[in-house]
């Protein structure tokens, strides 16, 4: 008897815990009952397809990050060769991970090799004919840089999304190449703004201007861009729509990394502008460069385009301002992007999904209605066909769904539309387990065994059948989770938990219910089944 008492206590405890975690917060939320936050924080959350919002998949162009490092290292070698007076005819990047040096005189070969070895630690060097050397980025460095670029991009996006003030965003890496980033923004309706802010590279560079011309060709020296210089397009000085070209020093005085803050403001003509503050180190470098270049133009370059090129009138240290033809909203977005830091690489959108809030609500309504109709049909059938034993099955079924809700809330799983489908399937499997058991008990009763013996034999014989069917389903679930994306994973999680809780309810809870029902009857002749 005491054995049975402990079983009942276990079941009631489990029920209370899962009800408190899984069901109570939903009810309290719906009817506005005030409850302690530790209970409400765990409330089951709705997925994007039910709540509405934006779902974006971006791919990080990791080549960009490699190209950046290749350019930097190439420039370092150029500077080193110049300072050590080793002549060469040409140095250029051939693609994202290669650059080559041409025209090293045979007499300077040893000196070049020594300088190159000192400067280039991340590149493999191979010698060609006529004093040509090709540098290739080491494969492990390439892998590291790609990984870093994706992680950094994810972190930058996280910062930007947080500044947007989205509640409970989800940002995760995915894809076989590991270079995709999934961004989910529940409740966001202004898709275009969100996309623009997320994708902007936000690369800010301040560079000293050498010359300005209306065409690119006028800036070339002997048909080439001068060494250590770059040509950047940008706005005309008149502030009109015409495009001007700026010959600037390749090395930036300061860049976005030196930025400490950026905020919307207005310029001297009361036009929207962005004011920024540099870090103390950036401020020192900026002060030095601006002091040396008074009277010259300073190009403020954002994402490879000159936004403005004011003349330096005095030494500037930590405070600056970007003005141009901005709208107030652009200024807001630009400050946000600058504050959150530059992206290490450009990104492209692979996928975009928006679910309006009404569409999500419609989906919930039909999903819930369908589940309830299904539940009702199954419950009625079980009650009619199995009579009192049907009550047992229905109790086990409801128990199962409550455990499922509770566990999902506890592990922080999200309720999605395929998740609702997982609920329905769990219901089906739960019913199946009870049907298996009941049919077996019926068989045993027909073989003229006593009621108690039949029940025991029914449960005992079906036990391994249930284990086999559940393990097989769990195997499928595991692969579904491993290879599935988004919604499919939600489905796999729901089903996985449902299978586990079903083993508990159909084997343990149902049997105990029978024992409780028969506990006070000494001579049991019939069973309502």
């Amino acid at each position, binding site marked *: 008897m005491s054995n049975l008492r402990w079983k009942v206590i276990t079941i009631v405890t489990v029920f209370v815990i899962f009800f408190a975690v899984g069901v109570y917060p939903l009810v309290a939320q719906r009817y506005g009952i005030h409850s302690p936050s530790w209970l409400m924080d765990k409330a089951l959350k709705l997925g994007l*397809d039910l709540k509405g919002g934006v779902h974006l998949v971006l791919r990080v162009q990791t080549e960009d990050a490699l190209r950046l490092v290749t350019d930097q290292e190439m420039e370092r070698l150029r500077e080193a060769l110049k300072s050590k007076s080793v002549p060469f005819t040409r140095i250029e990047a051939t693609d994202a991970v290669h650059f080559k040096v041409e025209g090293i005189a045979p007499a300077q070969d040893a000196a070049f090799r020594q300088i190159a070895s000192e400067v280039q630690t991340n590149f493999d060097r191979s010698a060609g004919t006529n004093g040509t050397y090709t540098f290739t980025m080491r494969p492990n460095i390439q892998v590291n840089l790609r990984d870093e670029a994706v992680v950094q991009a994810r972190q930058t996006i996280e910062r930007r999304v947080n500044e947007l003030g989205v509640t409970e965003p989800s940002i995760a890496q995915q894809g076989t190449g590991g270079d995709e980033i999934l961004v989910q923004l529940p409740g966001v309706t202004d898709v275009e703004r969100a996309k623009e802010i997320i994708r902007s590279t936000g690369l800010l560079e301040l560079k000293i201007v050498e010359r300005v011309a209306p065409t690119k060709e006028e800036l070339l020296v002997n048909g080439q861009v001068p060494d250590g210089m770059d040509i950047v397009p940008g706005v005309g000085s008149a502030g009109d729509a015409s495009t001007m070209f700026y010959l600037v020093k390749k090395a930036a005085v300061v860049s976005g990394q030196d930025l400490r803050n950026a905020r919307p403001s207005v310029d001297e003509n009361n036009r929207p502008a962005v004011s920024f503050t540099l870090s103390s180190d950036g401020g020192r470098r900026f002060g030095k460069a601006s002091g040396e270049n008074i009277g010259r133009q300073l190009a403020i370059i954002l994402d490879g385009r000159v936004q403005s090129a004011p003349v330096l009138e005095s030494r500037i240290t930590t405070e600056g301002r970007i003005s141009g033809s901005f709208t107030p909203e652009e200024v807001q977005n630009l400050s946000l992007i600058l504050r959150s830091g530059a992206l290490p690489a450009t990104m492209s959108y692979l996928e*975009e999904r928006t679910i309006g809030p009404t569409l999500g609500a419609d989906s919930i309504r039909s999903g819930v209605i369908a589940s309830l109709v299904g539940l009702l049909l199954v419950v009625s059938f079980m009650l009619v066909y199995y009579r009192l034993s049907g009550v047992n099955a229905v109790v086990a079924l409801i128990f199962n769904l409550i455990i499922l809700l509770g566990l999902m809330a506890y592990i922080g799983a999200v309720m999605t539309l395929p998740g609702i489908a997982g609920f329905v399937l769990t219901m*089906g499997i739960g019913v199946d387990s009870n*049907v298996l058991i009941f049919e077996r008990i019926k068989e045993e009763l027909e073989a003229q065994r006593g009621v108690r013996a039949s029940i025991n034999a029914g449960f005992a014989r079906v036990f391994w059948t249930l284990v086999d069917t559940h393990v097989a389903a769990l195997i499928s679930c*595991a692969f579904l989770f491993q290879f*599935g994306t988004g919604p*499919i994973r939600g489905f796999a999680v729901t089903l996985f938990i449902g299978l586990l809780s079903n083993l508990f309810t159909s084997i343990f809870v149902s049997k105990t219910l029978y024992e409780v029902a028969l506990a006070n009857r000494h001579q049991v002749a019939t069973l309502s089944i």
Partner: protein
Amino acid sequence: MHIFKNANYDFLRWRWHAIAASWVIILVGVVTIATKGIPKGVEFAGGTVVIEQFDQPVSVQQVRQALDRNYPGGGQNTVVQSYGDASARQMMIRVPQVGVELGGALSNEAQQVEDALRKANLGNFKRQGAEIVGATVGRELTSRGIWAVVLSLVGILLYLAFRFQFSFGVGAVVATIHDLLITLAFLAFFRYDMSLNVIAAILTMTGFSTNDTIVIFDRIRENLRGMRRDSMNQIINVSVNQTLGRTVITSGTALLTALALFFFGGEVLHGFAFTMVVGIITGTYSSVFIAAAIVSFWRGTGPTRAAAHAPAAAPATAPQQPTRRSKPQRKARAS
């Protein structure tokens, strides 16, 4: 209450008819897929889908005309459907292209569709949802889906080979592949878009079919111990009959829930529910006719191995034989 009182159908007698029928459906399915293809949803094919809510009622015809006239390249290959209940005045428009994947122009097509609708003066409308998928995404999804199916089948084969016998594992896996092919055939006949939800349903249904098969196998395993003198075919028939009540009830209740999803689950769950309905029916059928038949082919029709290899044990179980022999289905089988 009993659905089947003392069922004693000779299921294995019908196995050749069943296999022939399955082959016909599968072959017609393969021909349909080869000639017309399986319609792919945007998740797999790439493309742009927008769902617009109109202030005034509009017909599919009006929207289509608007696209024919104003959408760049005309309305070729576009799909226009009313979405959800007619009173909701929602239209789903699908165009195969997406904007340039590189850069931010992914949603250009969605804009162009809306521009075309605006030009046609169909009244105000509001975008309720959009799904824009680049062409590269689908390839990865397909390969992932196939891997998930193949690996879970291998997993089930190994588990059943370990828990039962190798032939049982083969039977279950062949039955599951059979169900997959039949379901794909029906999806092709009824032109349902292959979407992530449909894939979820296919995987659910394979789980369901294996579940059914295992229950019957489990009974065969149990009867193999008790009916050592009987042929494998007799044991299989008895086992299928003994579990028939359970098979029909379980499949019936599952079918009820799937039908509830189909009729009340809304637009998004339509493909899912349809796949489930087909899957449950074919899964039940294949457990009885395909999985068991494979075990029968594999193991031959002679006495079971237990009987052949354990003559000494046979007398010991003899006293049990009369009670078991009195079961009606055994008599029917002998006659």
